[in-house]
C-alpha cells in the first residue's frame, strides 16, 4: 500500500506545469485556442480585470506574444 501511495505521489509530481517557450506558441495563438469567441468581450473583461487586480494576460497569446502586458 505504501509503495502505491508513494508511486501515486511521484507520478502526480511528474504531471506538473511546463513552460511554453516563445517559439512554441504558434498553435496557442490560433483563434480556435482562445477561451472565448468574442475577442471584444475578452478585451473588455481583461480591462476590468486589469483595473481591479493590476495585472493582465494569461488568457491568450494572439494579442501579442511578446511576453509583456
Amino acid at each position, binding site marked *: 500500500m505504501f509503495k502505491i501511495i508513494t508511486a501515486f505521489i511521484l507520478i502526480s509530481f511528474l504531471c506538473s506545469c511546463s513552460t511554453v*517557450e*516563445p*517559439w*512554441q*506558441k*504558434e498553435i496557442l*495563438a*490560433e483563434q480556435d485556442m482562445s477561451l472565448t469567441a468574442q475577442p471584444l468581450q475578452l478585451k473588455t473583461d481583461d480591462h476590468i480585470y486589469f483595473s481591479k487586480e493590476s495585472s493582465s494576460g494569461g488568457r491568450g*497569446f*494572439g*494579442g*501579442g*506574444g*511578446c*511576453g*509583456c502586458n
Partner: protein
Amino acid sequence: MTKSSKKYWILSLLLLTSLNAGAYEIVNEKDFDLQDYAGKFVYLDFWASWCVPCAKSFPWMRQLDKQYSNDDLVIVAVGIDKKQDKFDKFLQKYPAKFTIVRDADSKLAKQFQLQGMPSSYLIDPKGEVVYTHVGFRKKDIPSVEAKIATIIKSK
C-alpha cells in the same frame, strides 16, 4: 512601334519595377550561416505570423534597412512559422526587402533562447551579440534607433 503599344510596354515595365521593389530573398535555416556576414553588423530579428508586434516591426525594419544601406548593417528576419501558408501570407502582407530566413524547426530560435516575440539581436562584425531587444513598441523606436546608431558609430 505604335503609340498604344509603346504605352503598354512602359506600363508593363513600371509594373515589373514595382513588383521587384517588394522582392526579398528567402533562405532556409539549413543554408543560413551568420559567418557569411562576418565584417558586417547584422540586425537579426525573430518574427512569426501570429505575433502582432512583429507585423508592426516590419515597416520599421524596412526603414532601418534603407537608412543603413551604405553602412554595412544587414537586416535578417527569421520567421519561425511551422505552417508555410501562414509564413507566405505574412510576407505578402508585410513585404520585406531584406533577407528572410525560414526557421520552421525553431533551430535558430532555440539557439538564441528567445525570451519573447519579436526578439532582435544586433551582432557586431566579429559575430558577437552586442545588443538585444525583446518586443516591439512604437514608443521604443527612438531609443532602439539611438542604441543601434551609437554601437555602429563606436566600432
